[in-house]
């Protein structure tokens, strides 16, 4: 699945351009706090992000142009099968669900569930072995990190507030 396709290049180029527009016109104005004294000068914290987003847009446009040209050119590489996409999507979905459950039921328990799901998805079918691995691995890791290295593990509900942003209204702060 990791051979690039022309269709993929077109999508990537387009995504970069769209991303650049969102970045320059939404993310930077609302996400970067600019002190009044430097607004509009080269020393503003917004300068580098804007330059980089713009560069991303330009590079994306170049990639898009090249890919569109190649499409109408000589032999085109085979597109990816829909099954491959489904499988990759499935694995990414498992990762996303794993991440979500970490913050609801704590890391070790979410890992046991996630590990079991991942093992099954990878094709393992020996239920006894899967259960064993899915329970022992997170337990062993948890014991190692908490008792040997003295690192405390996530406390589920409390962390939810922090990651998803205290003060979502801060997101719409206007530039000075």
């Amino acid at each position: 699945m990791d051979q690039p396709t022309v269709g993929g290049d077109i999508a990537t180029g387009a995504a970069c351009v769209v991303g650049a527009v969102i970045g320059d016109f939404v993310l930077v104005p609302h996400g970067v706090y600019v002190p009044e004294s430097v607004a509009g000068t080269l020393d503003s914290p917004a300068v580098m992000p804007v330059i980089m987003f713009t560069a991303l847009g330009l590079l994306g446009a170049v990639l898009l142009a090249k890919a569109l040209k190649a499409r109408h050119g000589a032999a085109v590489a085979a597109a990816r099968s829909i099954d491959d996409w489904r499988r990759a999507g499935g694995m990414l979905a498992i990762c996303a669900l794993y991440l979500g459950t970490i913050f609801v039921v704590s890391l070790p328990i979410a890992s046991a569930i996630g590990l079991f799901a991942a093992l099954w998805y990878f094709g393992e079918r020996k239920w006894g072995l899967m259960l064993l691995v899915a329970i022992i691995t997170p337990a062993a890791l948890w014991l190692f990190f908490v008792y040997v290295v003295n690192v405390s593990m996530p406390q589920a509900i409390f962390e939810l507030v922090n990651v998803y942003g205290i003060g979502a209204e801060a997101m719409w702060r206007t530039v000075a």
Partner: protein
Amino acid sequence: MNLEALVSASALLADWKVLLGVVAGVGVGMVVAITPGLTGVMAVALALPFTFFLDSTTSIGILLGIYVTSLYGGSVTAIMIATPGTPNAAATLLDGYPMARQGRAREALEMALYASLTGGLISTVIALAIFPIVATFALSFGPPQMFALIVFSITIIAGVSGASLVKGFIAATLGFLVATIGQDVIHGSSRMTFGSSELLAGLHILPVMIGLFTVPEIVIRCVESRGVRLQAFKGDLGPGLTLGQYLRLWPTYLRSSCIGSLVGALPGIGGAPAAFLSYFMAQRVDPHPERFGTGAIEGVAAAESGNNSVCGPALVPMMSLGIPGDTTTAIIMGALIIHGLAPGPTLFASQPEFVYVVFLLLFVCLIVLLPAGLLAIRFAGLVVKVRPQILFPVVLVLAAFGAYAIRNSPADVVSMFAIGALGFFMRIQAIPAAPFAIAFILGPLLEENFRRSMLMSGGSSAIFFESALSVTFLVLAVASAIATVFAHRRIAGFTKLTSG
């Protein structure tokens, strides 16, 4: 060379407790470095309270043992399961993991070990030899000089990213953007944190590396496992490294050690950039640069000797001036202060044997690293016996635990998965991950030093031309950029030839 001091330093080391300390340090360092999420910095911080009640030589032995080993150990997991145990092993992964997939894991693991030892030895000798000037040289790097140096480094790296220059640049731009998340150094304002205080510190390099390299690998293996028994490794670790293979790469070790020593002496940079810079330099001078990334042993050799060359020179400014080059050195300095040995000009003048103690201990640590590394390679053999269907899901969970363990921050776990998704889409379109990683590390340094220089000069860019050092690096950067265009033509030409 102060012989008297050298002799009294050796006497201090002739204590079984010191050797035991070094062995303990190397042991702890190995376990820590191999485990993704635990870094040398954490291990040294954890060991610090134990050293309060030991004598100073043993304490330094323990801490140096951890430091030296943590620069090597991450390569074991990087090579075996595409998960860098420490950030500086990410460059080793680029060729080490493909080698493992081709059944040449032992070759890669042994090269990583021997290259680390060689690099460490060379750089320690360099540091000893030019000790008096290292500190002054390091101090002369103010913001304009650092900016010029980083521009030069970026021109070395840019363009050596496979056939597509555009994709390499896209990767670098993305890396830079991700690095802007956090607090602006100059004004303290938050950039793209959207109110989250956990993100104020920015994304940590290790979850980003794991997201870039490990997570896409896991997803791709999953895709390949559809209806098919996965065949990741060929049953055992494969043939070992021959003496001939090792000796052939001496120019690589020397070149990478010099790069690593330079990077190590400069405060604030560290092992990961040293590894990447050495890797890309090796690729630049190689007659077949397109081999890199597909399992070229030169890549592993360069990356590992580069990152292990950091520790000796990093200790020099600490010992001669009391200015620590990075966090690990700062902790070692703390341990010394607690023992009444505050590093600085006075200590250096009044107790010169102290410097020799530190360097001799470095040599001892490197010697102890050899058997420890071989033992670790033995254990790596166990990984091969595990079925890929079980191995990769376990790696995923290990990565999640590790990402949280670094800073006790849930933002790190989220960022690992987020960058992981991004990394997957990059990977399937052959957008290379290495430029992303470099831009993530060096981008902020470039921006900060540019803005500091502008502050210092009141907005005039003449400041970059006022110092011989910065002019030198800028000229080198231009030369390197021109050479890049030719090198790129060469790679693109070769690829055109082979694809017909």
